[in-house]
């Protein structure tokens, strides 16, 4: 086992090189101070902003379980920023999206964030509340402005994270208000709530617990997992309990299974889902018939099929740009969040402060934001959802996106008195 002389020399060389590297460490690029400065127009700039571009991050899921959502959101945002750049951009700069796919994996989201943390001014789309929650500390220390695409109350209470629209609990409260006022649910009735484990389901459950207590109803809880696809056991339990309505805070597949089983068993009670519980693709499956009967959704955003001119414009341009792609509510949600982000950029530019602090400050100064896409929002209260008004939508096979407005955005009494548990 003799060793060649070459090996020895290589080792010695490596050692010498390491030593030299060590001595040279002082000249590392990292030794230079942080970026930033002031441009010719007197606008203060920070990370992600150069003389001619503003880089905006997107942390999304294009390959994991929420890929359908991530794809619609990302394409809609790319469409908006292209329109914005064609109209001259912001602050004399083009806006550039930096898209990172985390496949709904926390570790990959963290790597992606580390890359974005030094190169973008903020994040206009962040899919997945486990990922945002895991990065909360770093988002705070980086002062990174983030618009998450998740609506749980755990994400409230941080000035850098802006949950747009309502939170899941508020939606469920408004849903129960709708059921009692318009669907004949009376005091003493039982209402079922099927929900995902995790902060999505539990946020929603907080709301249904509060509202059922306020309205004198009894709540029958059924917790499920994201991997459960067959709702027979849940329906059997709910049927046994004799529920008069079912709330659903899970994924589209679970909604389809629940509605299918319930209808097939002759349970025709109304079903109201949270805003993540339906996708128009389901109307192409055998579950369609069940999903078109007494199936509602409670959400803060206007549906893509809504009769609002700005929303119709989004739907039309999206169809033109991405022919054949499903037009769901995520398109509107992605687009409007991009608008909110861009408006904050514009405001920050007007205040001559395009740093991260400047951006958050500009954004949080909007108390009555209205982009014309539905309900106005108040971004100044860190511990409150931006609005407490939810639309009630109904499934409709003919509508774009499969949903039409059943009841306009409104804030119920119970939602008004409800204290949102921010941060938990």
């Amino acid at each position, binding site marked *: *086992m*003799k*060793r*060649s002389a*070459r*090996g*020895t020399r290589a*080792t*010695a060389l*490596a*050692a010498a*090189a*390491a*030593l030299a*590297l*060590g001595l040279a*460490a*002082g000249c*590392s*690029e*990292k*030794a230079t101070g942080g970026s930033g400065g002031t441009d010719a127009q007197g606008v203060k700039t920070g990370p992600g902003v150069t003389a001619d571009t503003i880089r905006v991050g997107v942390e999304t899921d*294009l*390959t994991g379980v929420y890929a359908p959502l991530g*794809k619609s959101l*990302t*394409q809609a945002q*790319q469409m908006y920023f292209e329109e914005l750049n064609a109209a001259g951009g912001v602050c004399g700069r083009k806006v550039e999206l930096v*898209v*990172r*796919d985390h496949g709904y*994996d*926390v*570790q*990959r989201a*963290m*790597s*992606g964030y*580390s*890359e974005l*943390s*030094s190169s973008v001014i903020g994040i206009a789309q962040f899919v997945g509340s*486990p990922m945002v*929650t*895991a*990065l*909360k*500390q*770093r988002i705070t*220390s980086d002062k990174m402005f983030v618009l998450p695409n998740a609506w749980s109350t*755990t994400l409230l209470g941080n000035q850098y994270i802006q949950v747009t629209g309502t939170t899941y609990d508020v939606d469920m409260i408004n849903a129960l208000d709708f059921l009692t006022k318009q669907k004949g649910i009376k005091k003493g009735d039982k209402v079922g709530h099927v929900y995902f*484990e*995790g*902060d999505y389901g*539990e946020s929603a459950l907080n709301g249904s617990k509060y509202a059922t207590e306020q309205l004198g109803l009894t709540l029958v809880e059924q917790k499920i997992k994201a991997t459960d696809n067959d709702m027979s056991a849940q329906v059997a339990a709910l049927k046994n309990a004799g529920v008069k309505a079912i709330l659903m805070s899970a994924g589209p597949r679970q909604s389809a299974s629940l509605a299918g089983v319930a209808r097939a068993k002759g349970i025709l009670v109304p079903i109201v889902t949270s805003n993540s519980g339906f996708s128009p693709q389901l109307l192409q499956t055998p579950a369609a018939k069940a999903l078109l009967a007494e199936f509602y959704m409670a959400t803060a955003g206007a549906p893509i099929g809504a009769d609002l001119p700005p929303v119709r414009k989004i739907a039309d341009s999206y169809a033109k740009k*991405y*022919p*054949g*792609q499903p037009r769901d509510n995520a398109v509107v949600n992605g687009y409007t969040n991009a608008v909110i982000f861009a408006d904050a950029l514009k405001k920050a530019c007007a205040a001559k402060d395009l740093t991260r602090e400047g951006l958050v400050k500009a954004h949080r100064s909007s108390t009555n934001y209205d982009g014309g896409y539905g309900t106005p929002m108040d971004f100044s209260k860190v511990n409150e959802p931006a609005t407490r008004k939810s639309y009630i939508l109904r499934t409709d096979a003919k509508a774009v996106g499969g949903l039409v407005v059943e009841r306009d955005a409104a804030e119920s009494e119970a939602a008004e008195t409800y204290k949102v548990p921010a941060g*938990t």
Partner: protein
Amino acid sequence: MSDRRWLLPAAAAAATALLLVLPFYLGTFWLQTGLFAMSAAIGAIGLNLLTGATGQLSMGHAFFLAVGAYGYVYLASDSGPHLSGLGLPTPLAFLGAIVLAGVAGGLFSPIAGRLRGTYLGIASLALIFIGQHVLFNAESVTGGFNGRDVPPLELFGLRFDDSPELVVLNVPLGALERLWFLGVALLVPAVWIARGVLRGRPGRALNTIRDHEVAASVMGVPVARYRAGVFTLSSMYAGAAGALLALVFRRTVPDYFGMFLSLDYLAMIVIGGLGTAAGAVAGAVFVSVLPQLLTRFGDDLPLVAAPGSGGVSPAEAARILYGAAVVAVVLFLPGGLAGLWTRLRATASRHRSARPLTRLEQEEQPV
């Protein structure tokens, strides 16, 4: 043989020196990738002791990583209104986490001791599912679905955190840079101990158990004790990897410690090379860095595939390459990356180019 005695330490020292210098140059992204790789390397060494050297298929490695990660958080955190904790000094909590993982492994070893091969593999899969169920439900300890914040480690007055600021040689050393040094300080002894175990009597005993259990016990190897021992040791490695990972993440979430993590570790030791510490390290680096490289430099590919075209995204390309690497290594590179290195060197020295190395010889090769 005469020059071998100083050459190996020299090479090891050079590699260590290089590792120590890197944080002065690398950006956040690479630092983090490197830390994931170091943590994976520690965990993979542990699994290689168990699966590679002893032939005990374990699919429950992610569970022991979770014990380490959550153990550290529980031991180091103070009790709050919703979450409980013991509030121990953080270095003690770190050691405690490793011990806890070892205890968990020790508790499972009566089951492990009764089962053979595949049965053990799938029984250990149960650990993952039951473990995650507990992580989701024992909210006062684990924080449930949302997980818990990880208190930063504090060692001899040095906080492994972004604040207070620390500047060395004009380079500001943040949490990741500091953790990098911790990672190196853990990885080096991890490799060293594993090599010691594998090269000495225990290593030979473990290999005999893998190759022929009955023969091993005939020759007087206390099989049950060795099996329990290696299970415990491997769990402790996983515990250390988990605790380090928790410090890098700064937050533990139960979702992460699922079956796919266990499968990743198995892939690492196969790609790197079964039964050696160097193999585990090589495999860990490969598996941790490949997807990052593709995502980072996959920008030329369209990230959102054009409608109808359905192009392969960088993330998907990484997955496919990763699966292909596992298959290719088994088919064409028995011995993995570490074995390739040994073979290349053997060819270079032209001593035995005509004849491939036997397994025994391969294991004797310094790597």
